[in-house]
């Protein structure tokens, strides 16, 4: 019996190593594999060319999300290339006996929203998908990360991938979050402190009171954004909040199987004295509502702050200036009051019911600003139904907003939801890269509160003034 204290990450990792290759990676077993239409077709083509079958079809789950329209989903998809990818996903899933929640299926939605809400993701699991925001599932105490298409082919054909174990980082945030400060702000704050590459090479465990007191939706938002600091993934130890969320979910264990699983899940926490390669500590009262002003998620700040001067930033000055030039911003400018054209509420980062509740709490009794085009896109049909059931649809409709249908939408603008060149969008999504929301688009990442405040005022507004 080895009594060396282990981290949560060690425990889950070590339980999944099939073989350690000397001077090489581990052969790493995968419990849950999500696929979508964009990063899977070439992997299936690879299987076909090799004459190989899917080894464990019951461990892979397909959903269509990246390419799908967010209006008129009952009609044929207009873009022939998108339609072709959706058809390929459907055919590949059928040919290999894989569960497929395509367009129109009541379970359809963004892969990182539907996986957890159906109980597919469970504590202690390893979860991968050809999508970097797979880190979302780490909220359940799973090791979850994004992979490339070659690795999708590996998982389909052998349920394993080759992975070198990452270094370990723990980020502790203690204290109580202030008014109007959300999980999104906590994540953007951390990224702004350590930069968009500050956690590259690491797997992060989030710990401390702030995460302990967070809902599962909030934890998913935080873990989702792990990749934006470069981390391979992020995870949070499962606790009563996790178990309460999972209990009764369709694919979660039931009866005796639940009791057995629960016993195991309760062991999934970092032991006293376990070693991390790096540990960071922050206090909740350092964090105000955040907003980004540059072209990577590390270029963000508190909403009441000014855009930093190039001389004070960690990254190269030339790259920083290029970033501000793209955004049409100047060093030292105030962010409050900047005119906004588009507001996007949705994505695997902030497309869950809590995010719509937050948005509604600000727009309730107010009106959408005339200069704003708003896209409100639920993460799944389940979320869409909750929005209706809770009366949120009535609130947002009265305020002049429309609800669209689920999908990745304007987060990466593969469908028609594109922000035009030069226009400014406050987005609850995860990336403010050049052209991310459409060629030439300019993205300011923020929480649903900040998005709602911009949506009703037409400018960047501190949501605390409206709460």
């Amino acid at each position: 019996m080895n009594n060396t204290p282990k981290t949560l990450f060690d425990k889950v990792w070590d339980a999944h190593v099939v073989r350690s290759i000397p001077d090489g990676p581990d052969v790493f077993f995968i419990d849950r594999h999500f696929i979508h239409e964009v990063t899977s077709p070439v992997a299936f083509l690879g299987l076909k060319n090799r004459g190989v079958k899917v080894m464990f079809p019951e461990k892979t789950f397909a959903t269509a999300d990246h390419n799908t329209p967010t209006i008129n989903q009952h009609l044929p998809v207009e873009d022939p290339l998108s339609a072709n990818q959706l058809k390929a996903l459907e055919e590949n899933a059928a040919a290999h006996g894989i569960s497929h929640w395509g367009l129109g299926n009541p379970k359809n939605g963004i892969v990182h929203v539907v996986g957890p809400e159906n109980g597919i993701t469970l504590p202690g699991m390893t979860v991968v998908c050809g999508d970097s925001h797979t880190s979302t599932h780490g909220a359940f105490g799973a090791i979850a990360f994004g992979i490339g298409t070659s690795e999708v082919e590996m998982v389909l054909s052998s349920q394993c991938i080759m992975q070198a174990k990452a270094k370990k980082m723990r980020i502790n945030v203690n204290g109580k979050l202030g008014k109007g400060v959300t999980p999104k702000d906590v994540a953007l704050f951390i990224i702004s402190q350590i930069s968009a590459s500050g956690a590259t090479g690491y797997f992060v465990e989030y710990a401390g009171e702030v995460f302990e007191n967070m809902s599962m939706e909030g934890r998913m938002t935080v873990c989702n954004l792990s990749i934006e600091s470069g981390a391979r993934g992020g995870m949070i130890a499962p606790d009563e909040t996790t178990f309460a969320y999972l209990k009764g979910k369709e694919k979660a264990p039931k009866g005796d199987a639940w009791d057995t699983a629960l016993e195991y899940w309760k062991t999934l926490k970092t032991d006293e004295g376990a070693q991390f390669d790096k540990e960071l500590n922050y206090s909740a009262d350092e964090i105000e509502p955040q907003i980004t002003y540059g072209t990577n998620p590390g270029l963000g700040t508190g909403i009441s702050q000014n855009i930093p001067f190039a001389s004070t930033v960690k990254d190269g000055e030339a790259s920083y200036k290029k970033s501000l030039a793209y955004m049409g911003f100047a060093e030292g400018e105030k962010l409050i009051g900047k005119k906004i054209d588009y507001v996007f509420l949705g994505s695997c980062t902030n497309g869950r019911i809590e995010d719509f509740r937050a948005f509604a709490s600000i727009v309730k009794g107010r009106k959408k600003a005339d200069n704003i085009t708003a896209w409100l896109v639920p993460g799944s049909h389940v979320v869409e139904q909750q929005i209706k059931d809770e009366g949120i649809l009535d609130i947002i409709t009265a305020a002049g907003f429309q609800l669209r249908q689920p999908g990745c939408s304007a987060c990466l603008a593969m469908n028609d939801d594109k922000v035009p060149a030069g226009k400014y969008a406050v987005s609850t999504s995860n990336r403010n890269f050049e052209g991310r929301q459409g060629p030439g688009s300019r993205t300011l990442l923020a929480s649903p509160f900040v998005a709602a405040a911009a949506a009703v005022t037409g400018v960047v507004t501190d949501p605390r003034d409206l709460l």
Partner: protein
Amino acid sequence: MAYDKFNIVKSTAVPLSIENVDTDQIIPARFLKATERKGFGDNLFRDWRYNNDGSPKTDFVLNNSKYSGKILVGGKNFGSGSSREHAAWAIYDYGFRCVVSSFFADIFKNNSLNIGVLPVTVSPEFLAKIYQAIDADPKTELEVNLPDQTITLLATGEKETFAIDGYKKHNMLNGFDDVDYLQAMKNEIQSFATHMVL
């Protein structure tokens, strides 16, 4: 998918001295709609390379006839963001076999190794030397030697060693891929799977 073996690449290099080059820049999402792996090189750095009307942006390095070669030299945190392997495909398809940087994003690095593009991590100082050398003479050549794990500025002989694990090195030298390795150990995986708790 099988790829060409990598041994020693001696070539001029294309300097892209920008930090945090994310995979959305390497290949924008709207060009990810194919169901086959071909033609991605045409859209490599699409929005930095072309205007909206499809005309080339003359100030972008890939449109500058002074620079060419099989080696792309990028700034710190190259390949960040989306896990899209299409980014590595586009780089390979365009004709690059090697990307040099002082720092790579993890997923991009894995994806590149899996398809036969060698990511070479050098010190920030050596990266600066490479940029200076190319700036002084765009025809200057670099040698990337995988067996020796060295990268050399041929004009001056200055070199640095780079890291790669033995397993991946063996794969790249021989054009092997991980799927074949995993296929050969399916019984072991099957047996492991039956003992999984979840």
